[in-house]
């Protein structure tokens, strides 16, 4: 019985296996990126970027229908364009990065929705906005896995300057010129992972599998390495449980995954070891020293 519910769907159906492989790949790459987004106070920037991808994906859709390759390529181009333009504007004018990004992503989102609705149906629009991980074919899965691998490799390369730039940007500027490139590379990784999540979760929820696990991790550790590990595990478990939930209840898979993650998040807010509400309310007797 338990086997039928928890494992059966995956042994029985290939599309479930592919979906599971996809969410695990998304977790390994997206969650660490989400941790850095959160620590750099860029959570909403991630969200904004997700919308910025839309016109590119929409142009891909316009040219070749619901072809994930074309949409991915378009999304990457649009995402990079917005990320780099916003970054350049912020760095060269002193406009805060969030304000700079907000203007670009609003324009982008409006443009994207317009393009999709010119050619597509409302169902197409829904697919673009919320994704469909269960419809993933082998090629798309390979793209997702490839992007995840690239993300981990690049993250390993820029990890040190990224950490230092997050905690003490001025120091990094005095000892190295790696800060700017690391920041831009990080933004590029954000885009790659959003496009990745886009296949599975759509433009509105893509950032969910990055930010929610990061938020969960924040309540369980004060150590960066541990936070990244916790976030990856939280994302993968949410992905798996969300797929099971979606299969058994016929709820759409993307929202199911994000809702499971949300449940974990609420649990962490309540019971987390670091700053959880219950712990704050019942901290125990104060210590001697």
């Amino acid at each position: 019985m338990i086997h039928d519910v928890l494992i059966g769907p995956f042994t029985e159906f290939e599309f479930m296996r592919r979906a599971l492989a996809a969410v695990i790949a998304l977790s390994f790459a997206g969650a660490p990126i989400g941790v850095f987004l959160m620590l750099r106070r860029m959570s909403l920037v991630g969200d904004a970027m997700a919308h910025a991808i839309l016109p590119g994906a929409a142009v891909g859709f316009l040219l070749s229908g619901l072809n994930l390759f074309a949409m991915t390529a378009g999304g990457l181009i649009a995402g990079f364009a917005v990320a780099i333009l916003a970054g350049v504007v912020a760095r060269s004018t002193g406009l805060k990065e969030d304000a700079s990004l907000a203007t670009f992503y609003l324009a982008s989102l409006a443009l994207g929705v317009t393009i999709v609705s010119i050619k597509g149906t409302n169902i197409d629009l829904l697919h673009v906005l919320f994704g469909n991980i269960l419809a993933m074919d082998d090629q798309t899965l390979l793209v997702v896995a490839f992007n995840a691998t690239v993300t981990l490799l690049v993250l390993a390369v820029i990890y040190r300057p990224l950490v230092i730039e997050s905690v003490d940007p001025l120091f990094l500027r005095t000892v190295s010129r790696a800060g700017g490139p690391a920041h831009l590379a990080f933004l590029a990784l954000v885009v790659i992972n959003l496009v990745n999540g886009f296949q599975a979760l759509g433009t509105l929820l893509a950032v969910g599998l990055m930010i929610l696990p990061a938020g969960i991790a924040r309540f369980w550790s004060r150590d960066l390495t541990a936070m990244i590990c916790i976030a990856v595990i939280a994302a993968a478990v949410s992905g798996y449980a969300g797929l099971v939930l979606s299969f058994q209840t016929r709820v759409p898979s993307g929202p199911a995954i994000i809702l499971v993650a949300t449940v974990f998040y609420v649990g962490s807010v309540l019971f987390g070891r670091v700053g959880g509400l219950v712990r704050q309310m019942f901290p125990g007797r104060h210590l001697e020293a």
Partner: protein
Amino acid sequence: MAALHLHNVTLGYDRHPAVHHLNGEVAPGALVAVIGPNGAGKSTLLRGIVGILRPLDGSIHLGGLDSRDIAYLPQSAEIDRSFPISVFDFVGTGLWRGTGLFGGIGKAARDKILRAIAAVGLSGFENRPIGTLSGGQMQRVLFARVLLQDARLIVLDEPFNAIDSKTTADLLALVKLWHGEGRTVFAALHDMEMVRNHFTETLVLARGPVAWGPTAEVLTPDNLMVAMRMCEAFDDSAAACGEDGRSQAA
């Protein structure tokens, strides 16, 4: 050769000068204090020296040092103390010159980091996140990082602000140690007593230079009065500066 050569340097923001037509030289191994009222341009000058602010005019020569030979201790507001990084890792970033992007932290480097942490009196704090430190402890951590940077030129921006006397004394001892090792130290300060007693050379700054020389000669009531009278606000309708910059205060 001078460790630091300022030639007609004007530094500022949006074309408004915060440091105006500054000339001067710092000998290698000098222990220089920069004093002046708030808004006098002290921090701006230090930012110019370490290369994170480009001069609007004039030039700054570092006597053959490159940016890695400079250690800069900014006012601590720039640091995100909520970031989950331990004292050990944070201090360890001071080894950047040796490790760069990918270099590992081996046994020798670990020992160096531990010694630096011990030197500022924070042994036992290695694994604490920096967010849990007090202001004085954080300042000790920053000094430990400067120690590790092993720099020829050390630039300190108000390093003793809001720091208790015990911590100040400990950290001042480090500054004097660096001086003894022949490093050039350039520090923005507010405490006149400290400057008088410990710093060999002083620059009184009030946008432009008021005086620059041996502390005993420069730190006079007259010079301080001139500095205090400096107008703080930028003039929005100021005309372009035509001064050739050759003039310099005594």
